[in-house]
């Protein structure tokens, strides 16, 4: 204490100067004159530089609580980051679906896939829309990528959809470039098969396959997939053609049900003629 008093007495002139200067600067800081803004910013920069220079000195009394707070913030931010990533992905998917809805002449009902069976021969998806939303059996299910399948059955709030990877799936399809008609079906694996395509018909790898106007369930022109393999077996009448679906059926989360049902007059006439 005595030493401190000695130091104060030794430097009293300087301490007094600092005291008066600080009061003067404080008064200046209370001004609204435009010159003061620069002084304030310079003062803040100086204080910031001093704090930064002495920032390496840890405050052991606050470190513990600071660490706890930082951990809590870290956890909270991590959770928020996950939520934001999910929201972004969902937003991207919905934007793509919205683009599809805007360019199509059909009426759509948006649906979320709430259930899947992907390990059976009769793979299906469960949608969170049903009869209450106007969904009926045989309505096509699509995404912005192309055809997913069709509605098999409905309840008031849910619908079961048959996807392309189902052994009962059949669709009239057309190879867009060569205008070749065929029957599309699934025989296991990730690819589909185009049936009844004669060896003489023009089908090449990379050709786009779409739904045909002959289909009574699917509107024509819906993208199904791309021809990924063609081969010809000696002695056989038809080609073996594999089609890669344009929709990744294992990852679908949001879909649209097209409010489209078969033309009953056409179906009745075709059935009458067949009999």
């Amino acid at each position, binding site marked *: 204490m005595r030493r401190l008093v000695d130091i104060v007495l030794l430097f*009293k*002139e300087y301490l*007094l*100067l600092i005291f*008066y*200067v600080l*009061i*003067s*600067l*404080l*008064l*200046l800081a*209370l*001004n609204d*004159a*435009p*010159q*003061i*803004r*620069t*002084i304030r910013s*310079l003062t803040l920069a100086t204080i910031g530089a001093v704090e930064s220079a002495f920032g390496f000195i840890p405050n052991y009394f606050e470190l513990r609580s600071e660490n706890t707070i930082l951990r809590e913030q870290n956890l909270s931010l991590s959770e928020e980051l996950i939520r934001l990533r999910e929201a972004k992905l969902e937003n991207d998917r919905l934007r793509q679906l919205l683009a599809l809805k805007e360019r199509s002449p059909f009426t759509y009902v948006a649906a979320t896939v709430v259930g899947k069976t992907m390990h059976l021969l009769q793979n299906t998806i469960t949608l969170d829309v049903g009869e209450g939303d106007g969904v009926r059996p045989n309505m096509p299910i699509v995404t912005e990528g192309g055809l997913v399948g069709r509605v098999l059955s409905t309840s008031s709030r849910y619908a079961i959809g048959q996807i392309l990877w189902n052994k009962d799936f059949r669709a009239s399809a057309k190879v867009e470039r060569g205008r070749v008609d065929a029957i599309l079906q699934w025989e296991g694996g990730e690819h589909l098969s185009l049936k009844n395509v004669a060896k003489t018909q023009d089908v090449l790898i990379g050709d786009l396959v779409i739904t045909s106007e002959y289909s009574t369930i699917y509107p024509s022109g819906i993208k199904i997939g791309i021809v990924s393999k063609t081969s010809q077996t000696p002695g056989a009448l038809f080609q073996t053609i594999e089609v890669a679906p344009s929709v990744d059926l294992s990852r679908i989360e949001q879909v649209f049900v097209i409010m489209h049902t078969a033309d009953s007059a056409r179906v009745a006439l075709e059935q009458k003629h067949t009999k």
Partner: protein
Amino acid sequence: MRKPVARRISFYVILSLILVVVDSTLVKFLSLAGIVPDILVVWIVYIAIREGQIAGTTAGFFIGLVMNLMGMTESMLGLAALAKTVAGFTAGYFYNENKTYNTLGGYQFIVIVAVASFVHNVFYFIIFLQGSDLGWTRSVLAYGIPTTAYTAAIALLPMFAFARKYLS
């Protein structure tokens, strides 16, 4: 034999107030090409040489503060207090208890007034011109140095008066 402290302080306070009023009312008539002497700096230097650095610094602060509070300087409250505090502190460096009369009655007084006035003007213009397009160097050359010279010239009057009274 020096007067009691309380009496001396009262003398300095009263005369300081009078000089503040004079500075704000009459000194402008001494203006030469827009340059006016700072008689309060002369007074602060006198106090610093007579009483020491602490007294000079304190006198500078309070005289500047009174000027600000009376609205005699521009709207920047604290600016005159700061500049005059530094001027008083600077003048206090030249305090020598054994040579007070010689200093006040000799050319040293003019030199000290010039140094203190120059420091005062530098501080004043550095802050006053912040944020403006005018460079403070240019302003010090255009106004600070002429003001310093004029103030030093005015300081000849008290110097001669003091020399005549105490040194002749």
